[in-house]
């Protein structure tokens, strides 16, 4: 079920991003980490909105977005399920990876570091593991 990781009643949100997109990120993370498995039934919009303490309209937007991303399927009268098409989840993994690295590279550039010195640090970290 969605949001299994959070024991806390209400989610806390950062101020710089719409709440719906923060919730989309959280659910995407749960799918990638396997907390949400293909075919799992998601909470209803109202249940999820109660769980995270967020407006029903916002959650509706989250579910619409996930469906547009191909990560969920809504079966009439039965609810919303995590897609069983592994290809779509694989796709999300790849997208997420590239997005994270792109953000990382942008922040490195913003502070004036060269890629080379960063790669060196990454290698050193990996070796010292």
């Amino acid at each position, binding site marked *: 079920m969605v949001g299994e990781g959070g024991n806390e*009643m*209400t*989610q806390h*949100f950062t*101020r*710089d*991003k*719409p*709440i*719906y997109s923060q919730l989309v990120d959280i659910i995407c993370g749960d799918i990638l980490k396997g907390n949400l498995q293909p075919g799992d039934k998601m909470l209803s919009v*109202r249940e999820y*909105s*109660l769980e*995270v*303490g*967020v*407006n*029903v*309209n*916002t959650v509706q*937007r989250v579910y619409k977005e996930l469906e547009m991303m191909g990560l969920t399927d809504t079966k009439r009268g039965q609810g919303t399920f995590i897609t069983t098409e592994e290809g779509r989840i694989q796709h999300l993994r790849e997208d997420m990876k590239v997005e994270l690295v792109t953000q990382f590279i942008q922040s490195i550039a913003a502070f004036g570091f060269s890629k080379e010195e960063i790669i060196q640090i990454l290698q050193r970290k990996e070796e010292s593991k």
Partner: protein
Amino acid sequence: MIQLQHVSYNYQRQEVLKDISLSFPIGQIIGIAGENGSGKSTLLKIIAGIQRPRKGTISLYDESLSRRHAADIAYLPDMDLFYSFYTTKELFTFYASQFSDFSIHKALEVANFLEVDVDVKLKKLSKGNRGRAKMAATLGRNTAYYVMDEPFSGLDPIVRESLIKGLIRYTNMEEQSIILSTHELHEVEPILDQLIVLKQGKVIAQDDLETIRFETNQDAVSWMKYVTKEKVN
């Protein structure tokens, strides 16, 4: 849809509301914020049909609004001592006698969800529990609009959180709307669709919460501080 057009209100010589035009569609939770004395309570009373504007019009589904339309609007007053001689259950019975849209069954369900002891007199309850009882009585009504004046004020964070959950659980955003005033913007923000900021009786800002975050990278609290400072007349 509730629509206010050029609404003004004076209290003796003092202008409390100045030329306010707003509309409140069905299916939203709308927050009204502003400093003390900015006109929030008066605006809510006018929306609820309890006070009449000196100038301007207010309409509900295109009908001109008067006191009898209170039937379509459930109003939660900003009053701690509220029928204090009743128990919560007696309060519900009283509400049932006053409002044909009131469901004792639903009110008891909300009270149970909020964990209120319905057999204790309101004056014997803690402030938090009175706030809960009042919320249960309001949500027991089945109306298109719930108008709530400071439903969270003076209550501790746990009570506020349970009231917020009660609002999500016991309203139907396909057919209903909630208009509420609040000072606890940080906690209430996640359930709001839009925010209206009043200052000295005027609407100085109004926007969709997700738009505010998306366009200004600010949450409601910092956005409100910003617009309140910017627009000084």
